[in-house]
């Protein structure tokens, strides 16, 4: 009961403290809100990039095209074709022109590869026809068996967190099996670009977070210092009647923490507006990009903002108290 009374007394004193220095309290609050909103906005954008990145089907896919078998292998004679057949044999132990279980298993065995699917010329033709829908009339000129212009392929899927280095490694390993590099399609450039954008945004976010956090710490420190100054007589009397150090300090710490928590609540509201009205509005113009609903982030953002606010309030006020309050 005694502890509860003391706790509520401190809370009341802490809140009174906020209104004792309204200008400094408002300044601390505004800088902290900026700090949280900027960090939150960057985090949301980066996460949406990640989500779209994962959603893009062909980003973590590679296609190895199979050339049609040379004429020589089809039974026609000739010096040139004999030579190329010999070359292929020398270069590779794998069948580079048709489906081969050994080839498929060798690709599957590569690190980071999670799936390999063979797509024959006929299947490719059917798939293409379906994807074209009503515009596929021109394909009537072709036939899947006789004069199919498409090529068979291995569709390779690798883990979505595979970095560009490893994608290059997979590509090289497949090329070593005898496939020409120009027959291996991947999206390393897209991958690189997205990673660069993510990296740049993360760097900017971290710097802004650090700078704004330090500024807010200084403002909270000064706010606490002013509070200590304006309450110096009260503190002196508290000391003389036997108040403990923690009793004298608690209202100042609570003041900092309350400023931090109020900032977090305001920042969450602003972030909600920014995300649902501004960011989503801009991104919706690009129909290919999918944007996650704000509710997906509500819990994480609430916890993160509260943590930043509490930490800044606690740290700023404790530094100031240690420096300026002699109990």
């Amino acid at each position, binding site marked *: *009961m*005694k502890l509860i*009374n003391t706790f509520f007394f401190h809370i009341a004193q802490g809140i009174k403290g906020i209104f004792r220095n309204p200008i400094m309290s408002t300044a601390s609050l505004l800088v902290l809100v900026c700090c949280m909103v900027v960090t939150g906005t960057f985090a949301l954008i980066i996460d949406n990039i990640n989500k779209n990145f994962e959603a893009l089907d062909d980003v973590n896919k590679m296609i190895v095209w199979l050339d049609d078998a040379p004429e020589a292998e089809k039974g026609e004679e000739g010096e040139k074709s004999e030579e190329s057949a010999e070359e292929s044999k020398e270069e590779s132990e794998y069948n580079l022109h048709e489906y081969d279980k050994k080839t498929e298993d060798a690709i599957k065995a590569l690190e980071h590869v999670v799936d390999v699917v063979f797509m024959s010329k006929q299947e490719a033709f059917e798939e293409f026809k379906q994807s074209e829908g009503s515009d596929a009339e021109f394909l009537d000129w072709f036939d899947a068996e006789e004069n199919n212009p498409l090529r068979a392929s291995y569709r390779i899927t690798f883990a979505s967190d595979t970095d560009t280095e490893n994608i290059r490694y997979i590509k090289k390993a497949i090329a070593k099996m005898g496939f020409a590099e120009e027959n291996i399609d991947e999206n390393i450039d897209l991958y690189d670009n997205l990673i660069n954008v993510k990296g740049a945004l993360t760097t900017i976010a971290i710097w802004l977070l650090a700078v704004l956090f330090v500024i807010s710490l200084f403002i909270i420190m000064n706010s606490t210092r002013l509070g200590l100054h304006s309450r110096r007589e009260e503190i002196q009397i508290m*000391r003389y*009647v*036997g*108040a*403990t*150090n923690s009793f004298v300090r608690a209202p100042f710490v609570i003041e900092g923490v309350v400023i931090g928590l109020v900032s977090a609540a305001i920042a969450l509201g602003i972030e909600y507006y920014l995300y649902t009205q501004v960011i989503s509005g801009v991104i919706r113009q690009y129909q290919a990009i999918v944007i996650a609903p704000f509710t997906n982030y509500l819990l994480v953002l609430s916890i993160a903002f509260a943590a930043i606010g509490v930490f800044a309030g606690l740290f700023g006020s404790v530094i100031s108290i240690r420096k300026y309050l002699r109990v």
Partner: protein
Amino acid sequence: MIELKNVSMIYPNGNAALRNIDLTIEDNEFVFVVGQSGAGKTTLTKLLIAEERVSDGEMYINDFKMHRLRKYKIPKLRRSIGMVFQDFRLFDNKTVYENVAFAMRVVGARPSEIKKRVPHVLSLVGLAHRAKSYPDKMSGGERQRIAIARALVNNPDIIIADEPTGNIDPEMSKAIFELLMRINKMDKTIIVVTHDHNMVNYYNKRVIKIENGHIVSDTPAKAAPAAVSEQKEGGDEQ
């Protein structure tokens, strides 16, 4: 009991405020501490409430070894001592009741205890009828009585009054001393640091005279008037 054995107090700038003090104050005693400004009276009170630490010697207040007192024990020590200041140190934005209750609040007293104890102490100092008044609307004597009530409210063993009548007219001063005498009869040790020779002469109590950091005389209660006359002469010469 308060006991100082060969206590010296030297400030960091080298100024020796107290030198080789030997002093014993028994429980429930009433003691005047007199001396010129800068003699070391204030330093003595600061040592008693652990605002300063002894540089040398041993000092005991009840169960507290002041020369070895750990920081965390200071609040407990201060709860056993009530301080009264010349400038009252009251909150003008708080009522008389709130000023006194504040002292209980900050040591974690329960609201029910506060409601019971504060009116009792206010009636003891004769201010029960002014509980809802604000100090800045009251006379110096009344303000000092609020300060005494605040010092008394946590039921300390010792009351230290530093120039309690310094800002009060002579008539009111007498009332304040009368109040301190009454509190002394409630089994409290009273230490009054004062320049008020008339009052010291009037009340036949023990008088400790400090000069240049030394105790130059310690006159027991019965012989007090003579000692004070002596001191007055000495003071006038300076």
